[in-house]
């Protein structure tokens, strides 16, 4: 035994507990998955060559771009609407808080697909023209037939954004409520106005609670854009179905679309991870380091020593 400084203790070098049950059940699951994949491949309906052929075809890439544009635009607008309606919901102004409550109730309570049809088909048949004018003058800033204004993109954007805003309002509200009352009092005691307190003190702290479900919402939004197919917006699924409706190779093109959706949601999920780390700033547990990261978890699961 090596010479040791007095008082230094023996490190514990124990043999870790072996979880045999985990290995057995893990193997069983892998067998089932392998069998499903093999039988699907053998059926011939998933034609790898077809998938490769269409994965990067110009039409599919165009649809991919349209999906990303719609998802990002609708989510961004949804976040803004969410913050506005969450703050209105808490407002001392009774009218404001009731309007916010009604908005959330209405848009959360009706299916998105119905809302999309409403914007695309309903609105142009009810209101024939859209006019933005200065009241009591003859000045007209914008005038158009509603059918021309309500393009598939515009209808999909409005429908998804307004629907998302209702969900985001509840998420933001939960975030605001999670911030300690003492924070508001401290800010007020320093002479900060309610608006400044909300912007500088409450919302930044609420972000820690808001970011994880918002990442979830965005991942969900990436996929929900496929509903816009129903109102002829040329997003990913629409482009895929455009192709298979003439060539009849349905399954390969659904696989192509699914692969792109998986790529998009994976990228979004990774972004969410880094955003969460950013907003954990100043929290004691932000120093978890390797143990909290996905790689750290895998390393730990396979029995390696976590790097601390």
């Amino acid at each position, binding site marked *: 035994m090596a010479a040791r400084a007095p008082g230094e203790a023996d490190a514990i070098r124990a043999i870790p507990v072996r979880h045999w049950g985990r290995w057995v059940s893990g193997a069983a699951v892998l067998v089932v998955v392998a069998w499903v994949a093999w039988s699907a491949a053998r059926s011939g309906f998933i034609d790898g060559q077809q998938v490769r052929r269409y994965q990067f075809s110009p039409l599919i890439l165009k649809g991919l771009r349209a999906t990303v544009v719609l998802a990002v635009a609708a989510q961004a607008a949804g976040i803004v609407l969410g913050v506005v309606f969450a703050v209105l919901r808490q407002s001392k102004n009774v009218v404001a808080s009731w309007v916010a409550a009604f908005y959330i109730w209405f848009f959360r309570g009706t299916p998105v697909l119905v809302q999309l049809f409403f914007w695309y088909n309903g609105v142009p048949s009810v209101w024939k023209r859209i006019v933005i004018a200065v009241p009591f003058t003859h000045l007209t800033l914008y005038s158009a037939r509603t059918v021309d204004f309500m393009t598939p993109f515009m209808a999909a954007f409005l429908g998804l954004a307004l629907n998302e805003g209702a969900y985001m309002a509840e998420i933001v509200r939960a975030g605001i409520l999670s911030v*300690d009352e*003492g*924070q508001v*009092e*401290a*800010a*007020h*005691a*320093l*002479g*900060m*106005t*309610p608006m*400044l307190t909300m912007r*500088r*003190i409450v919302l*930044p*702290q609420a972000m820690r609670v808001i970011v994880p479900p918002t990442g979830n919402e965005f991942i969900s939004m990436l996929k929900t854009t496929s509903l816009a197919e129903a109102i002829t917006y040329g997003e990913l699924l629409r482009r895929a179905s455009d192709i298979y409706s003439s060539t009849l190779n349905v399954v390969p093109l659904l696989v192509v679309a699914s692969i792109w959706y998986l790529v998009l949601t994976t990228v979004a999920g990774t972004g969410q991870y880094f955003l969460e780390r950013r907003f954990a*700033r*100043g*929290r*004691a547990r932000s120093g978890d380091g390797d143990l909290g990261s996905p790689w750290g978890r895998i390393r730990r699961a396979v029995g390696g020593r976590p790097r601390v």
Partner: protein
Amino acid sequence: MVRAERVHKRFGRVEALRGVDLTVQPREVTVIIGPSGSGKSTFLRCINHLEQISAGRLWVDGELVGYRQDGDRIYELREREVARRRAAIGMVFQRFNLFPHMTALENVTEAPVRVKGVPPGAAGAAARRLLDRVGLANKVDCYPAELSGGQQQRVAIARALAMEPKLMLFDEPTSALDPELVGEVLEVMRGLAADGMTMIVVTHEMGFAREVGHHLVFMDDGVVVEEGPPRTVFAEPREARTRAFLSKVL
């Protein structure tokens, strides 16, 4: 500096303050003691309008708290105006209430920059001087979670001082601290008192009340029961309730 006349505060059915009369002189340290639930914290919070009083009159520096008087009429103040008056009163809380997403330095510069419009450079330099004064020159870049309770409370004091208040309110500033950290916070407060800051301190630290306080107020059941120079009140309490309380805490 502060004058209270028959101040009442009601929370629903509970009457927390039942007619508080009190006068605080400039450059004086007023210490308020009393059993929990006696209304001393509520009264302190009324002084900078974190609570609105239900009845009576309360003045700070000659101005009604939360209202503006014009002849016989009393007008409620706008939030912006309330905020402006609060900016002149520093407050230190029992649970520190530092902003956890900001470093010690940012905690201290936030209000001067955002409320008073002090240029960030000047505010930063002033904040460093204040943090140095409370003995935390080497902790400017730490987040609150990385500081001990005593250090957090000293940052909170520096944060309040950064607004150059004419009055400082302390709401049980050492009650949430481990016993060995109480001393460092009291030391900072003692220094402030020596510099002539007007202070109102709600505390259970009887030693501090005796040594640093100029004026001792004993509150119970929503009213001021007895007040006077600390040594007199401690040595010869006139009221039975004061005697009963002091016999328990001394």
